[in-house]
């Protein structure tokens, strides 16, 4: 085997082979990789560079370079603004509500579906349950609006039939959040269950058979076989959810909210949108956005670290 062979068995890139030679040998690969990498640098890292305007008094005419540094002024404004408390509170409360109600729902659905006998009904139920996931929030918000309409909606028809006054759900500070959470669950419960069902389908059937022989009821089999099987999936989903704790569902809220319910529905993202793109306060909105991204990052890292400590195999890395 001589060094002169033009096409050798590809060497594993490691510290032993000098970088220059690695680059030369893998020219083709690098050429393939560069365009996409540049695209990522531009559209993903580019904005990170632009984040510095959070610390500047950004004037669009002057550009990033021409604008002056103002340090933490925007952050100070953010933390002392009266609106902020409301926005932060809403974001965290809505996120937590989504988690508390939205996390168990797909799990329960998966366990239920798992008890169905294989066949048309089971497949039909599954297919129908994930359909809303593929429909946009614009459409679903419109559906919700139609169903909850005080004049022509089903829900209010029932309410009126029971003798009560119609409820204006979408402009009511009491009802908006429940509607938000319930419609979010409606949209996502089916799709959310797919991951769990996939895990459940990988269980060795002999485990269930052995349990049946031992006299275990369906509920017992659920508790002792199904649930432990999906526990790792649950922790991954939980970690990812924790990372998105400040997300609270922009697409949904944006399409469903209105000024009447800002008090309970305005979240960080909707606030940033209005401050930045409607009021043109670019620097301020960037500062708020940066705060949110940082908290999200910290949340993912810490949740993962905690899960790692408890059960290494269940963590993301």
């Amino acid at each position: 085997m001589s060094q002169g062979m033009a096409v050798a068995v590809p060497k594993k890139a490691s510290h032993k082979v000098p970088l220059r030679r690695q680059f030369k040998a893998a020219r083709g690969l690098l050429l393939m990789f560069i365009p996409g990498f540049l695209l990522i640098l531009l559209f993903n890292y580019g904005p990170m560079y632009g984040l510095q305007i959070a610390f500047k008094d950004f004037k669009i005419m002057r550009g990033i370079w021409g604008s002056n540094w103002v340090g933490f002024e925007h952050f100070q404004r953010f933390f002392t603004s009266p609106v902020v408390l409301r926005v932060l509170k809403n974001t965290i409360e809505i996120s937590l509500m989504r988690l508390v109600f939205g996390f168990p729902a797909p799990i329960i659905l998966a366990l239920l579906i798992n008890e169905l006998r294989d066949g048309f009904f089971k497949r039909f139920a599954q297919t129908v349950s994930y359909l809303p996931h593929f429909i946009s929030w614009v459409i679903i918000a419109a559906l919700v609006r139609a169903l909850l309409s005080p004049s022509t909606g089903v829900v209010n028809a029932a309410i009126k039939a029971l003798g009560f006054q119609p409820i204006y759900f979408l402009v009511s500070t009491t009802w908006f959040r429940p509607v938000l959470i319930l419609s979010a669950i409606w949209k996502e419960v089916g799709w959310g269950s797919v991951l769990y069902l996939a895990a459940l389908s990988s269980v060795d059937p002999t485990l269930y058979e052995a349990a049946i022989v031992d006299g275990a009821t369906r509920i017992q089999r659920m508790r002792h076989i199904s649930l432990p099987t999906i526990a790792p999936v649950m922790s991954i989903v939980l970690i990812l959810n924790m990372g998105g704790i400040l997300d609270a569902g922009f697409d949904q809220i944006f399409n469903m909210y209105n000024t009447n319910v800002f008090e309970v529905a305005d979240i960080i993202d909707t606030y940033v949108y209005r401050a930045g793109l409607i009021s043109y306060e670019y620097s301020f909105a960037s500062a708020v956005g940066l705060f949110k991204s940082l908290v999200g990052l910290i949340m993912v890292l810490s949740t993962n670290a905690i899960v790692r400590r408890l059960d290494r195999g269940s963590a993301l890395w």
Partner: protein
Amino acid sequence: MFERHDTLADKFVVVFVYLAMLVLIFIMVYPFWDQLVMSFSMREAALRGGFRLWTWPLNIESYRMVLRSHQLFVAFGNSIYRVVMGTSWTLFITALTAYPLSRDNMPLKGLFTGMILFTMLFGGGLIPSYLLRRDLNLLDKRMVLILPGLGAWNIIIMRNFFRSIPHEVQESASLDGASDFRTFLSIILPLSKPVLATVALWTAVGHWNDFFGPLIYISDKNKVVLQQLLRRVLLESEFSHAGIQPGPELGDVMNKRPTDEMAKAALLMVTTVPIVLVYPFVQRYFIKGIMLGAVKG
């Protein structure tokens, strides 16, 4: 329904499960059914509240009104354009970028992969992203919704799939003198149909449903996508701007005249039914995709 070994308690559980499923199916389907019935209703029937299970006689005025809209078809066309171009571009650039990361001899692989993974955890945010596109002169151009379509998640999924292709296949190609790119085109891609189909479907759905990107980046009337039009009509009740108006032939038949709700229902049906019809046939690819992506790492 029941298995041989089911105890009495088990039978209750099974009955409960099946009942729960029926309720679930009803809850999932009814909202759409409600609007379907509404869209075919006469004005009087539409003004009534209550469960809409059926209506008679059928009234197609709402559909006439909606389908008369020139803007609707323009928006439809723009959405299709975006889906086709956006998905093709994303598939191409993602595969091209993911393949090198799957090869052992890629230099600095760890660094590159790490940098890509990092973008999943942190980003510039809305305002810097907007300003970037503004500085690149991409605002109000169709490209702005298509070009940035390279995401870490899809790269990782494709990379994992490429990795699972046996080494011998790739080695034999390079021993035959094929360059990396040739190997990629002629051998890897044909073998990657499952992952390509999956990423294509996910991307297509994302493009089709995206309303926010167009909302902030597109203002030209001719470039409006379907979701923007839907937002304006369904949520902001702007009918005339979208070209949805009652026709002259309605004239005297009051009962056929669509209410706002009827028009909205018809529009909703027109835009949702295609999805509902196509969806059952393609949904298994989405499920397969979850399996592919579910392999950690």
